Structures are given as structure tokens and as C-alpha cells.
């Protein structure tokens, strides 16, 4: 995506909600080429992970992998998406919150609830990872993390322990 289109990331984000699949595909593909410049479209891109069209989902994932931390203004929208029933949407909402670090302090409760209740293991694992990235301000999630650290899944347990270490005592 060139500079001209990079500046239009927010507009492309709105285009992701188009009823025209071709328009959504075009927007997602352009955003996947934008790198960190796609950050203004963080929330629409996460929503696009639930698109019925596979190619749109894949372009959206590619964009999300590269866009780095989302803007602080996107935190609220991402917290809402943590509860989304689509695992891929929830996974990427959680991931972007984790990338936000301490800026996502308001997401701690939602992430802890995600560990407790999400039916998708990859989302629970990512939520533990995200709490570790948020660090000390995620202390309220300690009990949840301690419980997760004792669960059977090796990866979830390891990530929960790492989060507890990052949160500190």
C-alpha cells in the first residue's frame, strides 16, 4: 500500500464493513500491504477475521500480524471483541490488547474472563500471554492465572506462569 493509501487506512477499515464482498476483499488486501500503517483499521480488521469469505479473513490476519500495537483509541473496541464467539476474532482482539502492554490495563478483567470461559484453547492461551504483556497492572488477574498455571494444557500453564512472573508479587 502506497503512502496515499496508507493515510486512508481508516477509510479502508470502514470499507471492510461493506456489503459488497469484492469491496471488503480489496480493502483487506490493501491493508495487508500497509504494515504498521494499517493500525488505524485495527478494530475493523479484527472484525473481518469473522468474515464469511476466507480470503478476506486471510488478508485480515496478514494485516494484523504486521500492524504492531493498535492505537490507544482502539482498546475499547478490542475489549468488546474479546467476547466475540468467533475464535479467530477473539484471538486477534486478545493479541492486539497484549501488544498494547500497559495501555490495555482496562482489558484485564475481560482477558481474565476469557481465560476462565473461552471455549477455544488458543484464545485462552493468548489471553494468558496478553496478561503477561500487560504486566504489573494485571495483578487483579493473578488468581485466574494461578488456576490456569495448574491446568493440564502445557502451553497455557507455561504462559500463565510467565504472566505471573511478569506481574510480580
Amino acid at each position, binding site marked *: 500500500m502506497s503512502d496515499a493509501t496508507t493515510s486512508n487506512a481508516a477509510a479502508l477499515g470502514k470499507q471492510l464493513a461493506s456489503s459488497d464482498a469484492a469491496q471488503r*476483499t480489496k480493502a483487506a488486501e490493501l491493508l495487508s500491504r500497509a*504494515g504498521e500503517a494499517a493500525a488505524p483499521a485495527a478494530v475493523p480488521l479484527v472484525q473481518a477475521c469473522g468474515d464469511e469469505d476466507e480470503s478476506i479473513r486471510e488478508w485480515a490476519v496478514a494485516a494484523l500480524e504486521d500492524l504492531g500495537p493498535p492505537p490507544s483509541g482502539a482498546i475499547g473496541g478490542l475489549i468488546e471483541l474479546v467476547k466475540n464467539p468467533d475464535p479467530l476474532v477473539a484471538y486477534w482482539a486478545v493479541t492486539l490488547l497484549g501488544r498494547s502492554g500497559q495501555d490495555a490495563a482496562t482489558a484485564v478483567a475481560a482477558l481474565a474472563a476469557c481465560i476462565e470461559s473461552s471455549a477455544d484453547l488458543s484464545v485462552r492461551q493468548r489471553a494468558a500471554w496478553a496478561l503477561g504483556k500487560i504486566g504489573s497492572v494485571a495483578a487483579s488477574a493473578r488468581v485466574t492465572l494461578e488456576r490456569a498455571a495448574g491446568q493440564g494444557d502445557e*502451553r497455557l500453564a507455561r504462559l500463565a506462569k510467565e504472566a505471573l512472573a511478569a506481574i510480580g508479587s
Partner: protein
Amino acid sequence: MGTRGSTRLIAICLVTLVAMPQSIVSRLAAAEPMLRDTNSSRLVRIDMAAEAPLPRLVPIPSSLPPASPPPRALAGPAAPPLVAISYAAVPAQPTAPAVLAPLPIPAPPAPVYAAAPTPVTIPAPAAPPVYAPAPAPSYTPPPTLAYAPFSLPPPLPVYAPPPTPAPQALSVPAMPVSLAPPLPVPPQATLPPPLPQQVALPQQAMLPQQAALPAPAVPSPSVLPAPASAAAPLPPPAVASAPAAVPPQPLASPQPATVGGKPSDSITIATFNIQVFGESKISKPQVVDVLAKVVRRFDIVAIQEVRAKSDSVIPQFLSAINADGSRYQFVIGPRLGRTVSKEQYTFIYDSTRIEIDPSSVGTSPNPGDRLHRPPMHARFRVRANPPESGFSFWLVDTHTDPDEVALEVNALAEVFQEMKALRPDEDDVILLGDLNAGPPQFGKIKQIPGIGWAVSGVTTNTRRSKTYDNLIFDQRTTTEYTGKWGVLDLQNTFGLSIDKALEVSDHNPVWASFRPRETQVTAGVPAASGLTQ
């Protein structure tokens, strides 16, 4: 019964026969050689196609589901019908032969091939090699006649890759089964004299040169634009920073002889992250044209980010690559990833210059589930005469999770060392791919004795902002490395705008070249030159 009675009975029989429904008569006439085993009450069919001295009976299950997912013939778009190369053999009956009674049934739709304990391989001259799905997690294709003999010691039995999600059949393209004879290889280029002992390179010792890559089918194959622009400066020459640790290499090789447009005194191995390589990208002819041209420049390309639910993307791509008469083949790994968005690795290689050990292909171990997409590995060898003299090596194709780079890089260090120890007869392991990390973030990889990497000091992504792609190997053992490497800048090489280049991929291909002959390594031998440690 008197004569009158006999005459009446014959008349009744004739009337009955005439009155018999035609359908029954037809079925009797068309009766298949399918019999009923009176001992087991199972139906068995005589396999008339098998040219065996004795009829071979194949049990037919009550329903005929495949014992495992059906083989995926990942051939080109116009793939010929699957032709099984293994015919069933029925174990010898311990008791007297079964009494078989004819049973008329409609003609079967196709021969039935059942799994047998001792398959008999029957050549199928016009058929592509077909890999049956291997039981998870090991991807061990059946014997195939498609490859030239790769007479290597059998793999060590101790290696057992851990379970991986959604195991997929390994695949090979629809290629003629007769491969080109081994390429004549010129005498081994002069190697640096051995050093009395291994000398560690200093940190950040720089590469001697970033070389121009010969481009097949280009009038001036040895001269390509410098792989990087001002945004991706060439590394400084190896002068004072590399004190006598590495014997000097010629900065510019003499014009090599070429075979099929490629130099005969070296092979090039590349890694290329083709962002979201799926149906959308394969449907764009101008993108596929660039991608095909990229692949044709190299002998092997390790590709990351095949993302498609369809299995046709890489076969279609192979058709485009081979449209000019090239004879590339591929192997592809399973779909990997923790979410529904999954990726596949694939190796595409020039079968006229490179052969693969089909039994070597697999997914690397992933202890502790630290790797989002565990690497795919395969063992290759340069075609040479005699074959044993060809440079053989493991390739370990990887794409790290950008959110867990530090953890994954350290896990890759373990994978690298496990691959090194996998076979005592193979000392060359090349870890390559998109690490989402530059050398400063290589973590425990940097602690591996003798380790080095080809790319340093330049960017490897299309936007020229990151050094994420690399080739990593042990410079003490992979002395076949010529010291030449490069980044194939998509924009400069193909005259593309940044938008068009990004449409191809957000990564540039990265490559390194190696001598085609195996270099015997013993204690105290010279290190591969040109690596950064």
C-alpha cells in the same frame, strides 16, 4: 414318469425360461468374477488386472471407505486419474482354500485396492507419483519410482516427530517419472586450505560480498541489479573486521559454465515468504508471472505462508513455473497454526539439479508447543556423478509467530541441533525462512557453536525496513557455502512499483549459494567463509 410326463416337464421349463425377466438373464450373463467366500461369508473379488501367477483375492469390506484419507494427487490442474502403484496381496490361508461360489453382481465402478501387509510395487509408467497420507505425525510417503536413486543409509529410527495438527498428505506434482540423468559436475572448485584448528569468527564479522545472482533465461545471467537500494545498503566488505579467521574467498568468481542457464559450479538455495499465497494471489497472472520468474532463478526455494483451504494453489503455481520447460517439483507440509488461519510450508526444487530423499520430509519436533508453526524439514542432494559426491543437506523451513519471536527463536536453536544430530551421515543443516527477527534477536541460535548466517546488514522485506529472512547454518560443517548471498529486490529486479511489488509479497526472496560437491569435514577443517557469527 412316462414319455408324456417328460414331454410335459420339458414344455413347462421352456415356458418358464421364455417368461424369465430379461433383467435376470442379463445379470447372469454379466456376472462378475466376484465370489462368495463360503467360510467367511465375505465377498471377495478376483483382481483380474493384477498380472500374478495366481488369482489374488482382495477382501472387500462391507462398505468401502478408504482406510485412511484418500491420497491427494496434488498434481497439476489437469491431473491424471489416480493410479495406485500398490496392489493388494492376501495373506496365505492357514487352512484349506475357501470354497468359492459364483455370485453375480453389477460391474464394479473401479478396481479396489485394499491395504495389504506386504504391498507389491508395480510400476505405473505414465502415472505421477502418489503419496498416500502418512499416519500422523510422521509423513512418510510410500516408495516411489519418481525419484532417481538416492542411495542413502536408512533414517535413524529414533526420530519421532511429535503430533502435529491436521496432518496432511505429502504431495508431489505431476511430473514425468523419468528425471534427467545426473548432471555432469565440473571438477570441484578449489577449496580454501584447511586451517589447523577452528577459529571463531568475531561477533558481527561481515560477509565478504553480496553477490549477483545468475538469472536463467536472461541474456546476461551473471549481472543483476544490486539487490538492495540505498534503503538496504550492502554490508561492508570483509576486511579488517574478520582477522584471518576465514581464508579469503574470491570476490568474483570467473564466469561459470552453465547448465540450463544456471551455473554448474554452484547451486542457489532461497527462502521466500509469499504473503498469503492462496487462491486470490494465484488468480493474478501478473503476480504469478513474477513469482515463477523468482523461483526459476534458484535451485531450491523454501516458501512460507501458503494459506489456502484448496490444495490446488501450489500445483497451479508449479504449472506456471514449468510452463517454460523447467522441471521443478515440490513437496508441501501440513497446515499448521493454532487458529483456523493456518499456513503450509513448501519446498520447490529444480529436479534436473536437485533430488530429494522422500523419506526425509516431515515436521520438526515442537516440545512444549513453543512453535506456532513447527518447521518443515526435508533432505536434498545435488545431482552429481557419482551421486554420492553431491552436496547433501537438510533444509529446515520456518516462519515464526511475530508475537513470540524470542521464545520461538530459542526453540529453533534446539530444533537446529536436533536436526544436526538426526543422522550421523549428514552434517549440513540449513535453517531458513522468515524469523521475524534480525541477527541481534537470534537469542540462543547465536550460542550454537560454529553458527553463522548469510544475511546481515540489509533489509529483506519489500518495504525495506526489516531484516527478517535468513539462512542459518554451521560454518564449521557447511563448508560448501561459497560466501555468496543476496536479497532479490522485487522492485528493482522486475521494475515494479512498490504497490506492485507488495502485491507479489511483503518479503523479498533471500538466497545463498553452495558448491555442488560434498566437502568432507573432519576435525580442524576450515569454516565456511562469508558467514556472520
